């Protein structure tokens, strides 16, 4: 074996070993890498009860309620299988609208998620006014982002 083949083998083994080690580490800590908890997991009780955490999902169409004369807001967050009601006091980013994605930070109080921060989550789709028009002609629900509901929430 030539010296350069030995070096090639050594470098290859080190890189492969590192890749396997990091893959195993990431799998082990996968839960800690999650930015938010899915609504289905929240309904199943799989969330940290003693500390704040984040939930993510879509705002249900027609569920947004603003209390007149105050900054109190409530809406339903859905992952199209399960729902959870969210309450928040404050000003929302302008992209937080019905039918679109959000990520909220806070804690569960009974069946209600009390948020101290609500962020807009944009999806990977970019739609120009022209494309939006052709989409409405085909199917109104697609343009509005209102995807079909999945199976019944088991919880």
């Amino acid at each position, binding site marked *: 074996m030539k010296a350069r083949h030995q070096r090639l083998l050594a470098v290859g083994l080190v*890189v492969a070993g590192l890749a396997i080690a990091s893959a195993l580490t990431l799998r082990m800590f996968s839960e800690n890498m999650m930015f938010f908890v899915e609504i289905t997991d929240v309904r199943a009780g799989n969330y940290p009860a003693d500390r704040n955490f984040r939930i993510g999902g879509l705002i249900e169409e027609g569920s947004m309620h603003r209390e007149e004369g105050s900054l109190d807001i409530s809406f339903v967050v859905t992952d199209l299988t399960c729902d959870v009601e969210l309450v928040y006091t404050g000003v929302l980013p302008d992209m937080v609208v019905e039918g679109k994605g959000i990520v909220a930070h806070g804690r569960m109080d009974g069946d209600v998620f009390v948020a101290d921060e609500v962020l807009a989550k*944009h999806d990977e789709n970019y739609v120009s006014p*022209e*494309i939006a028009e052709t989409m409405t002609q085909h199917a109104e629900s697609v343009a509005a982002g209102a995807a079909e509901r999945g199976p019944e929430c088991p919880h």
Partner: protein
Amino acid sequence: MWTFLKKLYHQLASPPHFYRLSPTFILWLAVPGYLLILYGTIAGLVYAPVDIVQGERFRMIYVHVPAAYLSMMAYMIMAIAGGIGLIWRLKLAHAVAASAAPIGMAFTFLALATGSIWGASTWGTWWEWADPRLMSELVLLFLFIGYMALRGAIDDTTRADKASAVLAMVGAVNIPIIHYSVEWWTSLHQGSTLLKEGGSGMQDTAQLYPLLAVIFGFTFAFGAMLLRRARTEVLIRERRTRWVKELVLSNEGDL
């Protein structure tokens, strides 16, 4: 064909030949690169139709996406060139790796800065520490800084080349993590628009073509910048050799 490629490889791998031939490559990369960037930025930042949700804010994509993609591309070139330098003891490969670092760092910073400004006005936050995409890209910035600091800390060029090549290769595990972070875990950052399953998430060609133009334009321009830096790097590294002395004395070379 094979002998031609072999000859080209040996010519390019030799520092004086690389120094002599690189201006042609730089020209062929820079001209289409900057023309594409010119078209892409004007068409994207001025003429492309808005996004119905984000409005004018969506135009940040024309800088953010090429910068983010090139930050990872520059790192891969740095790590692969470092590996080639280690295994085949190719001096030119180490010069290329050293040249890629500052450009990659600049693109990483640009991706983080544009993303942060965009996030502040759309998400409602400048920075989220727990987001896997944001964190892995920040780690990339630190890897570039660490790579350059390590190089700067070792006076002997050969030792600096070896140590930094090992660091670059170890850090390369971060690249797939950056790319797949939005698929493996839940994140605030959205998935990839162009590499989305079932076709691109940008259907209007008036929005899409300028984006593709800046991506290819940035890539070509990056290639030109990399060769330009590598040329200077080769000259500094070979300063004690005969061909550099002759080049300087003959005063023919465009220094």
